[in-house]
């Protein structure tokens, strides 16, 4: 007889020793709060979406617009905002759709895939906001400097005289700072979701391994 068959026989006997809950005990459980990771993912994702939407859209006040006009970037900024709003709505829609797809009645692999997909939507959105904000900042800095150069009086032209190397330094410096900031954020992300999704990822990998 197979080793596992001995186990199977004994398995049936386990039932005698199992705890037994009453109707009332089970009924009470229906109203308890769930501690499922999906709930946590939902709360954190909504917070992230809100924060980054505020960051990309809420920071522009009248002063900001006046400044943009001064450095001839008003049309560019309007265009940027149209793109930004559209992308934000698109991501919120995608997030909502993916989130609605998560169902405990799916098979294990589909459930895991849908949870990871929902997370990926938020992650991509955050990356979009950060990279586009960084690039916008660099573009604005370049335009501000050029604007100062154009309107500078004779005595301080030397102060604003930028040669090619200075421009390269400015852009490279900006990108390095942006890169460092993104790295720090990425590490922070790894930490939070490492804790929350480590087990899920490991199990998903395990299931995928079976498919090879």
């Amino acid at each position: 007889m197979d080793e596992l068959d001995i186990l199977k026989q004994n398995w049936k006997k386990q039932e005698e020793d199992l705890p037994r809950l009453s109707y009332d005990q089970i009924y009470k459980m229906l109203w308890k709060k769930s501690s499922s990771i999906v709930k946590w993912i939902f709360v954190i994702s909504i917070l992230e979406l809100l924060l980054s939407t505020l960051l990309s859209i809420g920071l522009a006040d009248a002063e900001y617009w006046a400044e943009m006009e001064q450095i001839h970037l008003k049309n560019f900024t309007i265009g940027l905002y149209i793109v930004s709003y559209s992308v934000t709505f698109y991501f919120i829609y995608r997030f909502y759709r993916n989130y609605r797809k998560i169902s405990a009645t799916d098979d294990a692999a589909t459930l895991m895939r849908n949870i990871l997909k929902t997370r990926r939507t938020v992650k991509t959105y955050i990356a979009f906001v950060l990279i586009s904000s960084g690039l916008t900042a660099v573009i604005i800095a370049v335009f501000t400097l050029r604007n100062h150069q154009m309107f500078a009086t004779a005595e301080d032209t030397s102060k604003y005289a930028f040669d090619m190397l200075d421009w390269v330094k400015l852009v490279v410096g900006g990108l390095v700072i942006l890169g460092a900031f993104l790295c720090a954020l990425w590490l922070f992300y790894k930490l939070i979701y490492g804790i929350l999704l480590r087990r899920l990822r490991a199990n998903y990998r395990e299931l995928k391994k079976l498919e090879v």
Partner: protein
Amino acid sequence: MKKELEHQFVSNLEKHQNIVHKICRMYTNDQDSHNDLFQEITIQLWKAYPKFRGDAKFSTWMYRVALNTAITLYRKSKRDIKTQNYDEVSFKIKAHDYDDETEQQLKLMYKAVKELNDIDKALVFLYLEDQSYRDISETLGITEVNARVKMNRIKKALKSIINP
């Protein structure tokens, strides 16, 4: 209507609660965690209950939702200490049912099963519950062939534990 649904659900779960208890035994190591997981599975089953259609068996549907909760949705509220209270919830073997050697083998096998990863545990659990490979593959979302291959590997591994 709601009351009726609640009553129907709780009665069904009360009748089939053994399935949930067995999953809790498989995936937790102390009584508190067992109760915690039981509660989370109950909540998830209740949340999914409106989607349950009478065409499937309640128990078959339960395996899926309960295992999904244990493997994927459940967030352990505290660290599970493997050795502590192990006997309190671990599988029982009645000494008078078996000779010494078989009893020892069973103990070793249960220990080995408890040490498997979450997915392999689910496979073994469904196998022990007499589920067909078709049902196992549908519950886990893998192909039937892969479920068989994996199960054979686990069987071999268990064999080598008992007969090193």
